[in-house]
């Protein structure tokens, strides 16, 4: 790119700050600023401005509230509560089944009895 070209872009940058550029010209200016010639210190100001506006736009996009956000958080808490309850239940689990039927019996006593028989033949 020639010096003349750089002058052209300088002029375009000035017009950008005066809001006289079209959308198409802005796109061209962005592309030029991404090129190696656009790294000239003369374009630091316009590069910084465009970069700042780009970041603002990106941030705004992320912060757009999702319509299902509250629902997702509520679902998350429900799942966590269920899993917590499930783990607690499994942790303290104790069940006895006799002849295929669940019965209220002292599982601990049965365990001790079976283990004692295993080790004291």
């Amino acid at each position, binding site marked *: 790119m020639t010096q003349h070209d750089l002058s052209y872009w300088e002029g375009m940058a000035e017009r950008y700050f005066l809001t006289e550029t079209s959308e198409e010209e802005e796109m061209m200016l962005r592309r030029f600023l991404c090129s190696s010639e656009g790294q000239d210190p003369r374009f630091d100001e316009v590069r910084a401005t465009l970069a700042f506006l780009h970041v603002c736009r990106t941030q705004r996009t992320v912060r757009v509230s999702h319509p299902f956000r509250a629902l*997702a958080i509520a679902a998350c808490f429900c*799942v*966590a509560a269920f899993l917590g309850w*499930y783990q607690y239940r499994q*942790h*303290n689990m104790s069940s006895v089944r006799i*002849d295929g039927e669940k019965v209220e019996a002292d599982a601990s006593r049965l365990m001790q009895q079976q283990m004692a028989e295993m080790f004291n*033949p």
Partner: protein
Amino acid sequence: MKRIILFLLILPGSLLGAWAQKGMAIQTVFDEMAVKKNVTEVVMGPGRLKNYRLSFFHSLEIKAATATERQRIETLMRKDVAGAVLHEETPEHRLYELPQRGGTHYYIFYRCTGQTITLIYIEGKASLNQIKNYFQKK
């Protein structure tokens, strides 16, 4: 939003490590036999076993077991104990310790007297000697 989805995906994973018995051959025996007549099944979780340094206890006591049932149980059990690191066998009982994982011991105990079969699966931090000390009559 991504963090919430990730949380929802990771949380159930914490439960998957529970009880290695799932996937073992003797699980079939527990599933099939527990609903039959003359069978007593006992299941206990870690909260009830902390005094014994155990985290899971599952037993089946089968009274009046047929020869076919006995053979099936022994065949399936043999698959699981093929890689046992320790085994004690007497005519009446067999004790097997499976390879440790993450400091947890896995045991299969089997006893057959007459027509009564007792099959026990245990998980926990206790060694075989410690288990014997807990339950052997002094």
